[in-house]
């Protein structure tokens, strides 16, 4: 019998609504965590996964309170303990690693001091022992030269390093249970892979139990032994990681896995219909009934219990899970047909360079550059009509910067932006003509930010229609309703404000606003990264449908390589504002030739516990692009010598049609990989 660290029995947590009703966020959760086990809790926003993790250390977010049930740790119910008693447990026996380590570290205290504080609180070491222990802890989380690191301030560390410090602090008290709330969500792909690797090693070395909360099935797959899937505050599936991810026995988990874009599968993932229920909707039946493809009448009238299956440890909350075994995963996928490249040109970026550095007055007079580390340099891309080109890269790769300058919001230092055949676009949006403005539209990452909270949907959509076409009255209204139909929303949304819409609906409105201008080119800036997975698939599908219908061209910026794989015809890989590789996405994903593309693709996490990421390059973060030579010289695992540091690498074109910038012969690069 395995030792149980914490067991949760019939836990419900909720809040009082304004009209005095008790609304449950978590409903009757029962589960337990064994020693040495890593449990992944996965669910979309609002599913109650963070609330559950916090309850495991006896904490409720403001306004929430436990309605019933208990969290038992060492035969004590954490929910009954006083703050004084909880203090002894928290941090020492149960520790938490927050999502954003940068914000959870005090900015004006040195790293070493902050780790020491935790040690002082939870151990009886004297000063000497503590300083040894600090080095040991920082070493344990694989921070380079720990004694120097201890003297630094948080802002001097990269995001990945800050996360490592947070892990070191959590480990300081030798906890029995480690709670991780989306610890890698804000990190770049390569850094994320390294942090997960570290967590795996720590779990193995220290036999600490971990609870890993995330919306990202890829990350969950890498670290967990067991996975709990949550939906609308309930556990719907609980089982071994391979069982859950390979043959999910709950329709929600099935749909979720299907809606994730995967590197190995080209084409769009299948979207899940509908939205999760609001916490105050009380239905007698299954909470997933509304969105379920297998639902029968019974599902609406009675609630399924979380039942153990006879032949395994898996528990599932569904009447019809046996029907799911026949359904295959990763099958219903819309393939994108490659676009005809003989079409006309829509946009041409001719040797674009952009810098954020200010020019000195002397330089301005002499009309020369003094900035040697230009943010974005030598971008040369030709975009054909009806094509979807993706710009990918980690944070700081200059992909959003390029979009902004195409939109005319950021001036370029060198080069030329040409629109359509022969229109020379002014770098300043104010000098562009009405038709040029109309031709290029932007969709932003976060619809909460990009829609004016004081405008209702009608006002939001009327802005471009009034501006570009001078519509008003009945005609304006008719056009707005047409737009809503185009993004699959009904007329009744007209008078809603953004706060009354769900995330996916908001992004649809943002898409509709961009299409209102009947543009030739739409710039999509991380349009799906603020959305839940199931919603993301639907928005991607919408974008693809609109493109097929209207022949629009997209420039799609994303850090998510799987999403890019799903939607793009062509990919441009950027590192530190320089192009590394550009080519048809099928080829780039099949034969990543440039060392950086290889590293990047290797680090992508797939929702499969047996597909481990390849950690080729060091996870260091470069603040500035290098002055000379190849942009990837600092991290490249294939550096061949002086040449890489001195000379800008030449373009090479492979037989498959992807162009790369590297000193190594492209054939040798491909040979080395296999």
């Amino acid at each position: 019998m395995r030792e149980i660290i914490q067991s949760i029995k019939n836990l419900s947590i909720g809040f009082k609504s304004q009209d005095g009703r008790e609304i449950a966020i978590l409903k009757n959760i029962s589960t337990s965590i064994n020693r040495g086990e890593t449990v992944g809790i996965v669910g979309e926003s609002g599913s109650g996964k963070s609330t559950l993790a916090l309850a495991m250390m006896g904490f409720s977010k403001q306004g929430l309170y436990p309605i019933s049930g208990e969290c038992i740790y060492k035969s004590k119910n954490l929910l009954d303990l006083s703050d004084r008693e909880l203090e002894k447990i928290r941090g020492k026996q149960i520790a938490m690693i927050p999502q954003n380590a940068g914000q959870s570290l005090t900015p004006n205290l040195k790293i070493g001091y902050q780790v020491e504080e935790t040690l002082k609180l939870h151990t009886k070491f004297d000063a000497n022992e503590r300083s040894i222990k600090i080095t040991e802890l920082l070493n344990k989380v694989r921070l380079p030269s720990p004694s120097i690191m201890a003297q630094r301030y948080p802002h001097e560390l990269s995001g990945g390093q800050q996360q490592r410090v947070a892990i070191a602090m959590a480990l300081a008290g030798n906890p029995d249970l480690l709670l991780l709330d989306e610890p890698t969500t804000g990190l770049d792909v390569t850094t994320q892979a390294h942090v997960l690797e570290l967590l795996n090693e720590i779990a193995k070395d220290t036999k600490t139990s971990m609870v890993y909360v995330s919306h990202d099935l890829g990350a969950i797959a890498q670290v967990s032994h067991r996975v709990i899937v949550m939906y609308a505050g309930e556990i719907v599936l609980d089982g071994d990681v391979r069982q859950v991810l390979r043959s999910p026995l709950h329709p929600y988990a099935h749909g979720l896995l299907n809606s994730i874009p995967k590197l190995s599968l080209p084409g769009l993932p299948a979207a899940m219909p509908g939205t999760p229920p609001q916490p105050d909707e009380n239905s007698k039946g299954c909470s997933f009934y509304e969105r379920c493809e297998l639902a029968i009448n019974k599902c609406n009238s009675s609630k399924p219990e979380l039942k153990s299956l006879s032949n395994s440890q898996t528990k599932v909350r569904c009447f019809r899970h046996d029907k799911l075994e026949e359904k295959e995963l990763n099958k219903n996928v819309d393939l994108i047909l490659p676009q005809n490249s003989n079409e006309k040109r829509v946009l041409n970026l001719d040797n674009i360079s952009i810098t954020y550095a200010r020019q000195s007055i002397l330089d301005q007079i002499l009309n020369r550059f003094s900035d040697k580390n230009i943010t974005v340099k030598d971008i040369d891309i030709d975009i054909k009509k009806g094509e979807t080109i993706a710009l990918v890269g980690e944070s700081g790769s200059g992909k959003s910067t390029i979009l902004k300058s195409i939109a005319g919001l950021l001036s370029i230092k060198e080069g030329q932006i040409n629109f359509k055949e022969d229109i020379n676009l002014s770098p300043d949006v104010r000098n562009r003509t009405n038709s040029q403005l109309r031709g290029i539209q932007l969709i932003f990452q976060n619809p909460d930010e990009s829609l004016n909270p004081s405008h209702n949907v009608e006002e939001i959509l009327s802005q471009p229609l009034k501006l570009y076409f001078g519509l008003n009255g009945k005609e304006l209204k008719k056009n707005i309703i047409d737009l809503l139909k185009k993004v699959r929303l009904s007329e009744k949304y007209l008078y809603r404000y953004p706060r009354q819409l769900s995330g996916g609906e908001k992004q649809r409105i943002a898409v509709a606003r961009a299409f209102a201008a009947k543009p030739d080119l739409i710039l999509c800036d991380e349009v799906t990264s603020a959305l839940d997975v199931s919603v993301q698939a639907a928005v991607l599908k919408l974008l693809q449908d609109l493109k097929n219908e209207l022949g629009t061209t997209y420039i799609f910026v994303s850090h998510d390589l799987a999403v890019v794989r799903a939607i793009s015809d062509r990919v441009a890989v950027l590192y530190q504002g320089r192009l590394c590789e550009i080519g048809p996405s099928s080829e780039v994903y099949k034969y990543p030739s440039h060392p950086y593309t290889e590293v990047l693709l290797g680090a992508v996490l797939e929702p499969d516990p047996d597909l481990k990421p390849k950690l080729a390059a060091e996870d260091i973060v470069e603040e500035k692009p290098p002055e000379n030579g190849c942009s990837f010289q600092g991290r490249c695992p294939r550096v061949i010598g002086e040449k890489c540091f001195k000379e800008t690498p030449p373009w090479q074109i492979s037989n498959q049609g992807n162009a790369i910038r590297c000193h190594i012969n492209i054939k040798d690069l491909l040979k080395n990989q296999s």
Partner: protein
Amino acid sequence: MKNTELETIEEKQISTFDRVSEVLIAIFSRPSGMIGFSIVILHIIIAIISPLIVPYDYKEINSLIMLKPPNETFFFGTDQLGRDVFTRTLMGGRIALFVTFFGTIIAIAWGGFVGIFCGLVGGKIDDIVMRIIDAFLAIPWILAMLLIVVILGTSTQVLIPALGFFYGKGIVRVARAATHDVIARDFIMAAKARGHGNFSIIWNELLPNVRDAIMVEGAMRWSWMLLAFSSLSFLGFGVSPPTPDWGLMISEGRGLMSFAYWSVIAPIVALSSLIIGINLSADAFAKALGIDRTQKAPV
């Protein structure tokens, strides 16, 4: 599988009227707002109808009834010229309210516009305008007001714009700060990318989002302006006798306070109650709007 559109939100268009009534209900549902608003409304009603209801002529001098204490015929007594204090108190707020109300509107209009504009364009224009505003803030308002009044006279046509100008400076700062909160958000960038001009951005995108902050600040400024106007009258630069005005009445009666307290108590209570009323309302107004701002999807 069913159609899963959520039908929980009513589909009615939310009109301006609905919003105003929503805010008013929020104000009246808290005690401070209830009391404050009642006081302000009472004062406004009195100011409008006082000429019709006052028992005596406000400028009638009668040397036989000088400094009578309050009694049945003269509820608040009489002043040193034998005028009825009750009549003069009821009518004493008329000019003050009129001048400061329109002064506040001017202050909100120019302060709000300049603040939003500076917040939006930034750069050199912002720097220059804000330094000028800072310079004005350094000048004691009372000296500047006295100077204006001495040069241009004490007519309402002078006082309204002068007070409006001096009390708009604070609104500039508030509007600019509120604009800075909004300006970094993507919908402003979206509007710029669409090619909207500055004025369209101010009117359509910024104003609806900073309006609340400006209105609340304007309400606070109103009470200060009222105090300033009464101070001017007190110093003899506001309303000229025999027109009744609280500041003037306090000034006239203050020498006799030790034995004829009634001639100053009434205008003092009237003036302070109005200022307290405005402050309470402004406070409740801010809270009412604050609640509205944090309102998320209906739960």
